[in-house]
């Protein structure tokens, strides 16, 4: 099957800030491509390039088979976009927003009314038609944004941190909606700071400083770190950290809530040496074991690899 989004070697600078530096990505129908990365990595800029809101300094973009720059408006007919910042009309009602974005995309009459009603039900906003958009809760705003982005049944959907600032229950709802959209064969690009959301994507691109550092299915990415993460729960924490970091096979020690994730070159050595070393330092060890790596482990180790040479 052909890619619905195909971007090659995108570059974008704002003055001296190189926001995007050579990003390439392809997304097919029914695929959810997750863009993850810290703030300022270039996720929003990449999305804006893909919808033609910004013009790339370099690179080629094809969306739905149309080349951006040459056939931008034709491409946009197939794009649904939910910006990171709330960008619907706060002084219009829920229904008026939907009607506006529907009619601006050429829908009218009963077709528009029917589609709007279906979507309101779909996102769970029926009954709120007359409410002004700026009086909706954060989660409801995002659901209205999704409804407006879907009004013309786009083949391509781009969502920039759609669950930012949304409560966990609504986040769950939102992903249930996305799964149904994906099932209809839509190509989705979604950026998110949440690792549990990233894990739901078909493929992930990890962005840092304008580049996609790694790309792959969540399972492939974690597989690369298999057998390289230990979990440690111990008291007192400072001493536990110092002793663990001193082990020759340990690469770094990171705090994960009330525990540590210890990145190691191999697990056998540290698992044999650490209990004794910790006990000798008066550290009380609750738990020490090898665990399957999480996406967070993968990305943090990638970041460490990026920053270490610079510090050296």
């Amino acid at each position, binding site marked *: 099957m052909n890619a619905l989004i195909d971007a090659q070697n995108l570059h974008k600078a704002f003055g001296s800030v190189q926001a995007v530096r050579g990003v390439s990505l392809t997304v097919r129908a029914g695929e959810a491509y997750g863009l993850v990365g810290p703030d300022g990595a270039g996720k929003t800029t990449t999305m804006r390039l893909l919808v*033609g809101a*910004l013009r790339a300094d370099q690179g080629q973009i094809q969306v739905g088979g149309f080349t951006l720059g040459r056939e931008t408006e034709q491409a946009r007919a197939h794009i649904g*976009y939910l910006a990171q910042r709330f960008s619907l009309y706060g002084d219009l009602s829920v229904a008026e927003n939907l009607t506006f974005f529907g*009619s*601006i995309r050429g829908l*009218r009459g009963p077709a528009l009314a029917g589609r709007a009603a279906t979507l309101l039900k779909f996102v769970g906003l029926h009954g709120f038609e007359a409410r002004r958009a700026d009086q909706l809760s954060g989660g409801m705003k995002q659901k209205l944004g999704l409804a407006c982005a879907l009004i013309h049944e786009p083949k391509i959907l781009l969502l920039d941190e759609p669950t930012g600032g949304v409560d966990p229950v609504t986040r769950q709802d939102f992903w249930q909606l996305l799964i149904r959209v994906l099932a209809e064969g839509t190509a989705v690009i979604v950026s998110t700071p949440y690792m549990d959301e990233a894990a739901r994507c078909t493929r992930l691109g990890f962005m840092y400083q304008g580049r996609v550092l790694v790309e792959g299915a969540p399972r492939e990415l974690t597989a690369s770190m298999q057998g390289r993460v230990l979990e440690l729960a111990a008291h007192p924490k400072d001493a536990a950290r110092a002793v663990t970091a001193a082990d020759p096979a340990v690469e770094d020690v990171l705090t994960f809530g009330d525990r540590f994730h210890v990145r190691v070159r191999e697990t056998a050595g540290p698992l044999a040496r650490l209990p004794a070393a910790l006990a000798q330092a008066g550290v009380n060890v609750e738990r020490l074991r090898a665990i399957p790596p999480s996406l967070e482990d993968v990305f943090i180790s990638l970041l460490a690899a990026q920053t270490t040479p610079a510090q050296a």
Partner: protein
Amino acid sequence: MNTRLVSIIRKEFIQISRDPRTLILVLIIPVMQLFLLGYAATNDVRNVPLAVFDQDRGASARALLDAFRAADYFRLAYDVDSEADLRELIDRGLARAGLIIPAAYSQQLTSGESTSVAFILDGSDPTVAATALSAAQLIGQSLATDLMTERLERRGASLRLQLPLEVRTQVWYNPDLEQAYFMVPGVIGMILFALTSILTATAIVRERERGTIEQLIVTPIRSWELVVGKLLPYVVLALLNTIEVLVIGAWWFGVPVRGNIGLILGVSAIFLMSSLGIGLLASTIANTQQEAMLSVWMLLLPSLFLSGFFFPLEAMPLVLQWISYAMPLRYYLVIIRSLMLKGVGLQAIQGDVIALALFGVAIMGAAAARFRKRLD
């Protein structure tokens, strides 16, 4: 019908109807401007407060004061007993003029001698002073002529004094020299110019400020549809404002509308191209509504001063008169004043209309060329 265009126009009207600030700007400001400029900024000089130091108190002195009273330029506000009192009233700004009648005034006049009175004037406001000065001189001359005639008659020369030359004046278009006749057409020009450019600039920048432009950009709406759809509602509002000001000007201030209404609205629409263009241009430069407002004002202020809005073009130094040719408002003010007061046809104003159209096309063209359906 173009659904994209219609939907954006409809959306804009809904938003205008819900935005109290825009509504006030559109409905109230023009009326306020009209009344402020129709009254407060008027150059008409009436009822200048006059302090009188009458040392004579005779019949002739009373006749002189009656003459002052009869001309409504002066209000006999204070009757004082010393020059010092008179000086103090003028110093404190309570009186703007003073009249000192000498003790021997009546007696000198009856005995056939010449006499004089002193008229003191606060010159700090030159417009008021100039008018009051000529009014006082006129009152004095006319009284002197009457006295002279009286004396000649008493000596038996019963002929009426006939001056050898008389200038017969006729004031056309504005026989009572009402300041409102000058201001009301000006206010129409200012409203069309200032209000529409500010409203269009902020309406477009608001989409950027609130982030809604990002959603709009991603729809297949064409640039021209976006521009026309955003501007058209304000054209309608501006023309309604024009009618509003015309009606109030005619009904309240009695300013005649002698020209053809269709022609007035048509020429106003041509003028709107310039102000909409300036608004659009400002919107391509500014990132916030405040910036937009500011940049529009920077363009507006010189226009107001250099286009004959406050000061007549003929009263400006030659260099400034030349500069005024670069101001679209200048042409419109000439046109609207001619249309309203003189009731001329298109022929009499076609040069100015052509100039206005050229400015409109140039400004609009430049703005449209700068306008991009993109964030960068």
